């Protein structure tokens, strides 16, 4: 019997995540932990936010909104809008794990632990695994991502005051810059245009309309970006065909 045959899906998921995916995610959450400490969250709330929200953009938004003293209604709308993007990702991920069967309650757990990293990994490994191995593999992979993410955020949270100021500032810079660049990987023109419009317009809206500037800015500049990007895409397609 080979070592490969002995390995369960769970174990293979664990070992695959311990390499680059887990390390990259842990590093990204160092900045989240540092940001949370700087914005006044305590360690329990910081860890709970990571576990309950489990998506870097809304996690970062949560710490920013908390420090800004946003109202609960503004927070729900803003975080809800930011995490709409989780829906298509989960719609694409879950059939790769459970094989496209009807809805079961435990699928909510699959959805809660999903992330762009686990989606990309399941796309990669889907053909390599037999159906009975996929859910254990996915849970093993996600367990390591979550563990590394929490460890990274704890490192950022506790070391933020004990390292040289330059490194502390770099940790605070890392995660928003990382998330900003992730927005830059949008494949379609409307997404790219919306990112650029939002980067310019949303901070201005937040200054002009203190309570709901973010929501207004997101809706306004997201829509402007969508329309502009759609026009550019149509123009490009027409040029290709003509």
């Amino acid at each position, binding site marked *: 019997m080979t070592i490969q045959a002995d390995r369960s899906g769970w174990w293979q998921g664990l070992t695959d995540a311990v390499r680059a995916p887990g390390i990259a995610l842990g590093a990204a959450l160092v900045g989240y932990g540092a940001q949370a400490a*700087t914005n006044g969250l*305590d360690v329990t709330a910081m860890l709970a936010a990571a576990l309950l929200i489990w998506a870097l*953009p809304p996690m970062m*938004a*949560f710490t*920013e909104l*908390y*420090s800004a003293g946003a109202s*609960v209604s503004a*927070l729900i709308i803003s975080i*809800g*809008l930011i*995490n*709409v993007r*989780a*829906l*298509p990702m*989960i719609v694409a991920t*879950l*059939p790769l794990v*459970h094989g496209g069967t009807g809805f079961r309650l435990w*699928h909510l757990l699959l*959805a809660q632990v*999903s992330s762009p990293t686990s989606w990309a990994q399941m796309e990669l490994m889907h053909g390599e695994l037999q159906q009975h191995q996929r859910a254990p593999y996915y849970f093993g992979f996600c367990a390591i991502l979550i563990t590394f993410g929490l460890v990274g955020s704890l490192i950022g949270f506790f070391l933020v005051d004990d390292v*040289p*100021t330059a490194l*502390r*500032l*770099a940790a*605070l*810079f*890392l995660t*928003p*810059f990382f998330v*900003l660049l992730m*927005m*830059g*990987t*949008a494949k*379609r023109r409307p*997404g790219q*245009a*919306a*990112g650029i419009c*939002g*980067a*310019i317009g*949303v*901070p201005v*809206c*937040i200054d002009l309309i203190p309570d709901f500037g*973010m929501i207004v*800015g*997101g*809706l306004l500049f*997201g*829509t402007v*970006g*969508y329309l502009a*990007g759609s026009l550019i895409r149509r123009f490009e397609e027409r040029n290709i065909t003509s």
Partner: protein
Amino acid sequence: MSDSAVWVMLLAAFGATFVWRAAGAVLAGRIRVDSALFEWAGCVSYALVAGLMIRAIFFTEGPLGSVPVADRIIAVGVGFAVFLLTRRSVPKSVSVGTALFAALAFWRSGFFG
């Protein structure tokens, strides 16, 4: 902000994120994710997140706000240049941008003499 207020906000944030996850779990395999509505929702999300992250880097009242704006512009600009030159490699561009940011911060603190 009081302790209980943090947990109220946290539960609200959890609800606001979980609702989409639950909808995704229920709808998995049954809906088209390439519709115009989905694309628009994605655009709103891109605009919101990009704006918030720009605010966190350039318009923050926290410790990052004490760093000269020129240093932040240089680090973000060089990082973006690497991003474009490396076919949009996030790890490479984040590493270069953050390392440059740290180097500038060390330089400002007199670390290099």
